[in-house]
């Protein structure tokens, strides 16, 4: 009983030990250590956080998931170290290694996961090399532990220079220390472009070797290879594999595809058209505004000119009719021997000629007023009035008139000569249209109203009926037959004031007197 029990217990223990051993073995193999090189893009590289990534790493992750194993990476500085790690047993697997006859002696490989071709790279301006056969006796760079190293050494006709790091090999080629570089095409291109020297190298001849790449394990670890084989086959047949291949190894799709170029061209064209349209619209609007203003000004001037021409043609024709008429009458008078009558006719001719001369002079004065105004100067109205008093002293005395200044005279910024003429014209008008029985009194003063300075010339003359208050400013308009002059004085005065940016008008009480107002803008007044 006791012995049977002991045997039973012993059997149980043995079974348990067996089970434990099996479990321990399985546990050791669910986490695989993969040796990878630090920097062999696109198959192996480290991302920004220092974690391994790349085609081989992602592919291995897919395979591991299917096979139900965990992965741990052992990152080595170069391929030599990677292969040593697997050889020593520090790693269980290399996810993606070139299959060469030498390696097959110590490693076992899965089905190939990709195939690279290694080609001969030379400098772009090398023209005497069109294949590996032209490199006899010349220096050719290879990477240590790369399939090409063994291949070229076996040929024996080139001087093989082995590099540990790819950039060293690449720049040895560029600097001329070696004449060629043999390395897998996609890796070389990718790294040369990343170093911005992609346009400095070229491939010559056909591919030197085609190297299949596959998962590598130690030759004696066939159990692991067998475990992984179904996962490898499944992954290779999957869409995920294709996506991965295109992502890492496929030619990157150029950003500027035909569609994109067309779309951007269309956008630029559209923007240009819209821009031109807006520019054109704005320009046109601005030109239109200018033209409208110019047109309005031109129309105003044309109307003014037409009125002017009409007046001139009419008013200058009148004395001509007189001259023509009386000239013929003089002949008749002489025929009849009527010397008295002839003298009278000649007097009419003389008067008409004189009148005409006067009109032409006045017209010239008016035309000049429109064009030429002298430099504005600071001038005191008091000084202008004093000057005016002395200039018209005779006339003032003759009429028994008084001309006086009311209040403090303002200072103006005007053309003194022209402005003096305005005041003189207004004062002479006041004397001319006086009441016969009242001594003329003329007052000159200033008021500030509605933000402008208003000068006034006030008289106690006969005044102007409302109907004539605008007409008197027209060319050759007079109110009285007996008055001297052609009727241009007020026209000139108004023109001068307008050229200074001001306005001239009259207020009047018939029978009591008139007040002529000159409103001036701030620019013509000294504050």
């Amino acid at each position, binding site marked *: 009983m006791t012995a049977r029990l002991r045997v039973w217990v012993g059997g149980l223990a043995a079974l348990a030990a067996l089970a434990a051993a099996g479990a321990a073995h399985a546990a050791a193999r669910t986490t695989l250590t993969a040796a990878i090189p630090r920097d062999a893009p696109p198959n192996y590289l480290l991302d920004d956080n220092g974690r391994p990534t790349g085609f081989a790493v992602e592919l291995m992750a897919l395979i591991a998931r299917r096979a139900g194993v965990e992965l741990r990476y052992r990152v080595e500085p170069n391929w030599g170290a990677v292969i040593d790690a697997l050889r020593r047993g520090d790693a269980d697997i290399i996810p993606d290694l070139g299959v060469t006859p030498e390696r097959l002696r110590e490693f076992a490989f899965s089905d190939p996961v990709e195939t690279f071709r290694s080609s001969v790279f030379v400098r772009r301006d090398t023209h005497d090399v069109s294949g590996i056969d032209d490199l006899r006796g010349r220096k050719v760079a290879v990477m240590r532990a790369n399939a090409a190293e063994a291949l070229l050494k076996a040929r024996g006709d080139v001087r093989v220079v082995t590099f540990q790091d790819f950039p060293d090999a690449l720049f040895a080629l560029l600097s001329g220390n070696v004449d060629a570089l043999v390395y897998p095409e996609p890796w070389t291109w990718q790294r040369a472009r990343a170093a911005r020297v992609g346009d400095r190298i070229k491939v010559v001849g056909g591919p030197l070797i085609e190297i299949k790449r596959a998962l590598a394990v130690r030759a004696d670890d066939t159990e692991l290879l067998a475990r992984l084989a179904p996962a490898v086959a499944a992954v290779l047949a999957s869409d995920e594999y294709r996506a991965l291949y295109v992502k890492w190894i496929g030619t990157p799709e150029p950003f500027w595809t035909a569609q994109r170029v067309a779309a951007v061209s269309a956008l630029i064209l559209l923007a240009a058209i819209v821009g031109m349209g807006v520019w054109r619209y704005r320009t046109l609007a601005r030109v239109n505004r200018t033209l409208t203003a110019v047109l309005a000004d031109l129309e105003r001037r044309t109307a003014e000119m037409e009125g002017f021409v*009409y007046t001139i*043609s*009419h*008013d200058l*024709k*009148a*004395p*001509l*009719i*007189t*001259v*023509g*008429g*009386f*000239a*013929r*009458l003089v002949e*008749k008078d002489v025929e009849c021997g009527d010397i008295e009558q002839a003298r009278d006719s000649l007097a*009419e001719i003389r*008067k*008409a000629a004189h009148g005409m001369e006067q009109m032409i002079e006045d017209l010239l004065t008016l035309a000049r007023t429109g064009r030429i105004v002298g430099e504005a100067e600071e001038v005191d109205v008091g000084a202008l009035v004093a000057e005016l008093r002395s200039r018209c002293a005779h006339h003032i005395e003759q009429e028994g008139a008084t001309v006086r200044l009311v209040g403090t005279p303002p200072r103006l910024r005007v053309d003194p000569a022209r402005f003096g003429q305005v005041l003189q014209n207004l004062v002479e008008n006041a004397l001319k249209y006086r009441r016969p029985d009242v001594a003329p009194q003329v007052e000159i003063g200033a008021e500030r109203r509605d933000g402008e300075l208003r000068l006034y010339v006030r008289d106690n003359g006969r005044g102007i009926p409302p*109907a*004539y208050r605008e007409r008197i400013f027209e060319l050759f*308009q*007079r*109110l*009285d*037959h007996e008055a001297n002059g052609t009727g241009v004085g007020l026209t000139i005065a108004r023109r001068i004031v307008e050229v200074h940016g001001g306005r001239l008008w009259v207020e009047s009480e018939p029978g009591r007197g008139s007040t002529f107002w000159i409103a001036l803008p701030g620019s013509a007044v000294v504050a």
Partner: protein
Amino acid sequence: MSSSTARPSADDRHPLRILLVEDNDAHTKLILRAFREDRLANPVHCVRDGEEALDYLYRRGAFSDPASSPRPDLVLLDLKLLKIDGTEVLKTIKQDPGLRAIPVVILTSSAADDDLRGCYEYQANSYLTKPVDFEKFHKMVQELDMYWTVFNRPPPA
């Protein structure tokens, strides 16, 4: 009885009374000389501006006496006048039912289209421009008189 006079058609009429509205004294003189040359004995009343013309026609102020200021049979009107323009005078005459029957002949130095158009619009009866040549002036006045005195039949009184 008076049908044997030199003016066969005007036998039963007084000579044409003319109101001359002219602001240019020399022109007034010329027109009067032209009438005189032809020994036309028309009574011509001269006024010198538009205001006087209307005063005369409405018998205002100095013209209130019908004996010295009789109603004219014809108005000779210059356009460019002092105070009130010829066009205004024409308009006033033609808008007044009591005056509009009086023929108004514009006699001016202006041949401007606007003036012509305006005058006909306000129903001027005729538009004449003053010729520089006195012979033409003379002939115009002569024919003017002939036309309005002899050929034209005035409205019944």
